[in-house]
C-alpha cells in the first residue's frame, strides 16, 4: 500500500475563456499528502484550490499531469469509494431531511441499511445535528448545511477527506466549531485535504500546509515555519513606568491594547535586551513569539516575486 494518500504530479489545468484565449488555473502543480495527515491548501480566491479538488473527484479533467489516490489512477470512478468530498457551499436535494440525505448517500457506497443507520446517528452527533435530523434541508441554515455536508462526506468512512472551503460563509464562532470537527476527524486518523483562504486559522489545525498562488505551490511546510518573518520577534509585556515604555516605543514599532504592549524587534539580541530592561524596571513579560508574516504580506511577496520573474 502507498504511504501517500494523494500524489499529484505536474498537474496543469487550462480553461478556455474566449476563442483563442486560455487561462491557466493550475500550473505544473505537484503535491504529496501522507496518509493520516491533515493537509491545508491555502491561498487567495482564484489561486486554483477548488480546481484541484474538482480534478481529484473527477468533476473536471486536467489538461496535463497525473493524480494518484492511494496509488491508483484517479480517473477510475471506483477510487471515489475511498473519498469523502465536501464541495464549496454544498447544495443537496432540499426535500430530504438530514438523516435521509445520509442514508441516500450511503446507498451509493453500498453501505447496508442497518450499518448506514448506525453511522448516520454517529455522524449527526459528531457534527452536532442530532436535534435537526428530521428537519428538511431547505430549513437548514448555511452553517447547518456545511455540517451535514461534512457528515455526508463521512458516511462511507472514507480514507481521504476532501473539504473545499469548509468554513466559507460561516460566522467566526461557528467556524471554530467546524475546525474542531476537522481536528476530531484528524485525531481519528483520517487523511484530510482542505482548502481555505484563511491562512492562520485554518493553517493551525493542519500538520502541513501549502500556499497556492496563481496555480503554483509557492511555499510548503509547517505553518509556523512558513510564517516566520526572518529573525524578528514579538515581545508582549506589561510595565507601569511610562518613562521606560516611552524609551522602548521610541526605538521599536509597538502596539498597546488593554495595558498590554507588544513591541516588534528585529533579532534575538534586541529581544534579550528588551526583556532584561523590562524585568529590571519591574515589568512582566506576557509572551515572546517569532514575528509572523500576515496573509497579505505573503501574497504581496508572491506578487513582487512574479513581477520580477
Amino acid at each position: 500500500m502507498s504511504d501517500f494518500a494523494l500524489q499529484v504530479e505536474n498537474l496543469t489545468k487550462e480553461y478556455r475563456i474566449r476563442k483563442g484565449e486560455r487561462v491557466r488555473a493550475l500550473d505544473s502543480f505537484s503535491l504529496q499528502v501522507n496518509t493520516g495527515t491533515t493537509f491545508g491548501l491555502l491561498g487567495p480566491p482564484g489561486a486554483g484550490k477548488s480546481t484541484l479538488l474538482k480534478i481529484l473527484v473527477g468533476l473536471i479533467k486536467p489538461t496535463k499531469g497525473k493524480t494518484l489516490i492511494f496509488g491508483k489512477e484517479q480517473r477510475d470512478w471506483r477510487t471515489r469509494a475511498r473519498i469523502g468530498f465536501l464541495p464549496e457551499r454544498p447544495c443537496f436535494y432540499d426535500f430530504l431531511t438530514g438523516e435521509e440525505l445520509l442514508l441516500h448517500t450511503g446507498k451509493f457506497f453500498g453501505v447496508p441499511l442497518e450499518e448506514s443507520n448506525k453511522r448516520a446517528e454517529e455522524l449527526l452527533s459528531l457534527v452536532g445535528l442530532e436535534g435537526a435530523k428530521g428537519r428538511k434541508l431547505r430549513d437548514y441554515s448555511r452553517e447547518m448545511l456545511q455540517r451535514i455536508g461534512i457528515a455526508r462526506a463521512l458516511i462511507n468512512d472514507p480514507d481521504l477527506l476532501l473539504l473545499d472551503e469548509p468554513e466559507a460563509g460561516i460566522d467566526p464562532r461557528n467556524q471554530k466549531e467546524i475546525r474542531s470537527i476537522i481536528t476530531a476527524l484528524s485525531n481519528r486518523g483520517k487523511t484530510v485535504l482542505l482548502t481555505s483562504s484563511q491562512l492562520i486559522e485554518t493553517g493551525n489545525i493542519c500538520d502541513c500546509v501549502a500556499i497556492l498562488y496563481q496555480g503554483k505551490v509557492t511555499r510548503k511546510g509547517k505553518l509556523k515555519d512558513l510564517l516566520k518573518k526572518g529573525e524578528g520577534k514579538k515581545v508582549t509585556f506589561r510595565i507601569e513606568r511610562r518613562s521606560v515604555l516611552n524609551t522602548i516605543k521610541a526605538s521599536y514599532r509597538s502596539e498597546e491594547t488593554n495595558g498590554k504592549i507588544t513591541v516588534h524587534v528585529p533579532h534575538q539580541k534586541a529581544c534579550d535586551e528588551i526583556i532584561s530592561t523590562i524585568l529590571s524596571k519591574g515589568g512582566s513579560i506576557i509572551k515572546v513569539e517569532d514575528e509572523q508574516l500576515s496573509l497579505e504580506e505573503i501574497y504581496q511577496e508572491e506578487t513582487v516575486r512574479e513581477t520580477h520573474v
Partner: protein
Amino acid sequence: MFRRVATLAKITLQESLRKKPLIILFVASLIFISSAQLSSLLISGIPVKKMQAVWLRSLIGFSTLLAVYLGACLLFTREGKKKLYSLLSLPVRRGEIVIGKFIGGAIALLFLLLLMGVVFIAVTGLKQFSYLLIWQAILLAFWEILLIFSLSLMLSTLVTPLLNISISLFVSLASNISVFLKALSSQVDNALLSFLVKILYYFIPHLNRFDITSNMIAGEGVTFSLVLKNLAYGFYYMALFLTIGIILFAKKEL
C-alpha cells in the same frame, strides 16, 4: 450498478414531482382535459368520437410540454450544477446518472400521463372506443413522450434550458408533421432549402407513427405487430439519444 441506477431513479422521481413549473403545467392540463366534455356539448356538428380523439391528442401535447421541461432541467442546468458536484463525487459512473435520471423522469411522466388519462376517461367516458384501443393509444403516447424526453435530456448536456426547450418543441412539432415535410421537400423550388427539408425529414424521428387517433375515429383497431414495430422504432431513437447524451455528459466539464 442496478442499485446505483435505482437510487438515482428514485431520487429523480421525487425531485421531478416537486418541480413547481411541472405541477403548474400539469394542473393546467387537468383543467383543459376536464373541459373536454363541455366543449363536446358546446361545439355542435362535430361527431363526439372525433372530438374526443382530438382531445386525446391534445393531452399528448400537454405531456410533451411536461417531458420537454423535465428533460431540460433534470440533468444539467447552471443552477443544478452544485447538486451535480455532490452527486459526481460519489462512486457512480456518469452514464449511470443519465440512465438513472431518465428512468426516474420516465416514471414521473408515466404517473402524470396515467393521471391525466384517468381524469380524461372519467370526464368523457370514452364509451365510443374499445378499452384495448384506448390503452394502445396511451402506451404509444407514452412512448412518444419518452422519445422527446430523451432528446431533451441529451440536449441539456449541450445547450441552455431555454434553447433546449425551443429545439425540442421544434423537433416535436416537425416530427409530428413529417409526412408534410416529405411533400414539402419535393415542392420547394430552392435546391438548398429542399435539401435541408429532406435532411430534416430523414434525421428526425417520425412521431406521427405513435398517433393512432385516425384509427380511433375510423373505428379501426391497431394490430399488435404495428404497436410493437412502433415501440421498437421509438426505442431505437431513445437509445440513440441517450447514448449521445451519455457520451456528451461524460466529457462535460463541471
